[in-house]
């Protein structure tokens, strides 16, 4: 056991912060500039995510396990490709998620 309090900036160090969301970002890939141009470009959502939950990509990929739903990506996206939607319409109940995984 460490004799001092220390931690690494690792994924998930603060727990399953995705459980904190009331709203989640939903990406419309037809609007995403990276997708339209077929290459890793723009990536502004990745730049602005304060929790590092977005991975670069064509288009960028949001990690919903940790995304807290702050909405900054939706705010900053120059193409308006990200919309914040209430969690309730996505069926957050664990039973639902397990069901989805099964399907």
């Amino acid at each position: 056991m460490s004799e001092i309090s220390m931690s690494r900036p690792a994924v998930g160090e603060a727990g399953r912060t995705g459980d904190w969301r009331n709203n989640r970002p939903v990406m419309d890939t037809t609007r995403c500039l990276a997708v339209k141009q077929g290459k890793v470009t723009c990536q502004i959502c990745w730049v602005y995510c304060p929790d590092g939950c977005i991975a670069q990509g064509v288009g960028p990929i949001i990690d919903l396990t940790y995304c807290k739903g702050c909405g900054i990506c939706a705010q900053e996206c120059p193409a308006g490709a990200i919309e914040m939607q209430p969690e309730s319409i996505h069926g957050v109940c664990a039973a639902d998620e397990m069901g989805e995984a099964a399907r």
Partner: protein
Amino acid sequence: MYEIRWHGRGGQGAVTSAKVLADAAFRSGFEGVTSQPSFGAERRGAPITASSRLAHEPIRILSQVTTPDIVVVLDDSLLGVANATAGMKPDGTIIINTVKTPAELGLDALLRVVTSDVTGAAETAELIVGGQPMVSTAILGAFAAATGLISMDSVEAAITHAFHGPAAKKNVDAARIAYECAHA
């Protein structure tokens, strides 16, 4: 003594629920009441708990409730995340803000479950704060209906003491609607 555990999300008002309940219970004749949040950093959206105790003599226990008689869940999305039924006494009651049935929520058939669409009640009463329906006081109506431990008069008095002006009336209206639509 009745031990109550609340499950909510930071910013949803579970701590307020516990506070107003303590006041309502005191007005209902419980000489001993305590309410306390789960102590620590509070962040919007993070699952939190609060503890309340009601008795007819002063409460002398200050540790967190671990074997609740009553569990109140302000947000049914927490059922998958926070172990809401942990430690519940066998004849305990769980009160949930939801439109789903206990079976749909995946709850043990042996549990006494009372549900109420408290979110809907808050919306009907136009009790919207920061774009979200505020369920923290309304759920006390469901609590009163489910347990019979506090009167709606005491709930109204406690709410009116905690809030002022038009906000108080909306909170009271929402609580009344949640009371009416609570069902086991």
